[in-house]
């Protein structure tokens, strides 16, 4: 059972964001990757794409399911994790680290305040079960 990093913020749809000033890294939580099973493909947008909080940024596929990835924050896509194209399984083995999905420039950092802390997220998924 992975620990949920304290410095991340979390959404109800199981996305996380690590923000440093207005630069954010986005990813999928450990809970989500467990639910999806073995990840086979990650579909991410091109750098430059603009997104509003809650809008779909792409999708994550396992063999039998597809999950939309909803952006936890509004912003502009700077970089995507190309390593996942070759090894999508990294999203399973290291969802909070090497399995990051998107680097984004936040256009409304205040949105972070509305997201869950690690403790809040842990009790949220505990309640879900």
């Amino acid at each position: 059972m992975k620990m949920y990093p304290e410095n991340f913020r979390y959404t109800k749809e199981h996305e996380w964001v690590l923000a440093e000033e207005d630069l954010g890294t986005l990813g999928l939580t450990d809970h989500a990757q467990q639910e999806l099973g073995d990840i086979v493909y990650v579909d991410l947008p091109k750098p430059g794409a603009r997104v509003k909080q809650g809008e779909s940024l792409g999708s994550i596929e396992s063999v039998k399911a597809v999950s939309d990835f909803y952006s936890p924050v509004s912003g502009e896509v700077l970089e995507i994790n190309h390593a996942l194209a070759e090894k999508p399984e990294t999203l399973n083995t290291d969802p909070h680290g090497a399995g990051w999905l998107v680097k984004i420039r936040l256009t409304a950092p205040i949105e972070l305040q509305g997201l869950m802390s690690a403790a809040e997220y842990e009790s949220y998924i505990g309640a879900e079960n």
Partner: protein
Amino acid sequence: MNRVRQHLSQNERLLFEQSSPGKRAYQLPELDVPAVDAAEALGAANVRAEIEGFPEVSEVEALRHFTRLSTWNYAIDHGMYPLGSCTMKYNPRINELVARTEALAWAHPYQPEALSQGAMKVMAHLEAALAEITGMDAVTLQPAAGAHGELTGILLIRAFLEKCGNPRKKILIPDSAHGTNPATAAIAGYAVENIPSSATGVLDVGALEQIVDQDVAALMVTNPNTLGVFEENITQAAAILHKKGAMLYMDGANMNALVGIARPGDFGVDVMHLNLHKTFSTPHGGGGPGAGPVAVKKVLEPFLPVPRLKRTGRKWAFDYNRKRSIGRVKAYYGNFGVMVRALAYILAHGGPGLRNATMDAVLNAVYIRKGLEAYYDLPYTQPNMHEVVFSDERQAKLGVRTGDIAKRLIDYGFHPYTVSFPMIVHGALMIEPTETESKDEIDQFIEAMISIAKEIETDPQLVKTAPHATRTSRVDEVAAARKPVLRWKAA
């Protein structure tokens, strides 16, 4: 475990791996006209190089190859397929014989109508029989499969609503629906709005009443639904829709529970499709061909795909002069070869026979429910019809899911049931025996399922790593999806 034993199974390579230059399995006659130089006739730039990698094998190698491959398949000819909503009934061999009747099998769709009266009569006869079975006014045989029929049906609704002045924007689809339903709605240019099922798994007419407005074109419903339960409020649902000028589409995949007992046209359905490869016994062939005729109420008849069969005196003809038609959904007239097989089935059974088949189908499913309800969770309490849906709730607590149970069932000599569908049931086991199966076969199935339930309690790993008795053990679908290899390539 008594019916399954190891047996000799060849290690057959791919055709390309046993190909040898110069081997041949064909022999063409001598030309009775002069040969023609391809480069001269077509222009050198138009002539291809040889087809690289194409196999070259002898006749006996070709036949052995496919025969060996066939031994790796399960089929209805082997035993039961308890696949829910697939209606894997016996594929009568008489169907195969009559479909090969020369003048029908070799009929060219553009040959003169005067030479096609037999084929047209077959189609007309089938249209009439299906109209009677469904309680509808007109039938088109053009769609090539169920999903194709769904698209046709939704396009008919669109055309009708357009004529009324507003095609509207969305289609309501229950969360228990087959995936083709929402996919179809999207292709037809409609937005999909999910309508959640009630707590008992049936249509929530209260919710429906709230949701139906001027933007709703139709509700797509399967009846009985994907739980195998009859939608008892269907006439009410139809009334709600009709009051707001919307229509009721029925997915006919589960007609095996209704033929001769109840007719969709009588309970408010405006348009529906049938699956000839389900209810009407035409063979699945490993994934098709099928046929998805669409039956409609009179009001939708003008919009049916062109051409329509029409009769002038004693002659049948195709009517292309159909100004309101939605157009064609397929070239020519539909999967005629499949129609022949379905008609043979209907002729063999006749009215009383079809009704009996329906009753046997329901009996078999209810019998299975009774046999297994002590071992597997039933997520609802209403009576089921031709299929029954269990959940893996109980087994999941021990770490075993419906997919694992399905794989272990293979070791008992059965094909798995439908796994994880409908999505409204947690870990669904969807079982439809059809009328084909005898009590004996079903008892063996029930015994197998009970045995597996017991195995899960004592040795769950055995079930989780199944199947063990097959030539091919569990296939790595993850690797197949991560690094797709979709064709053979020379080393």
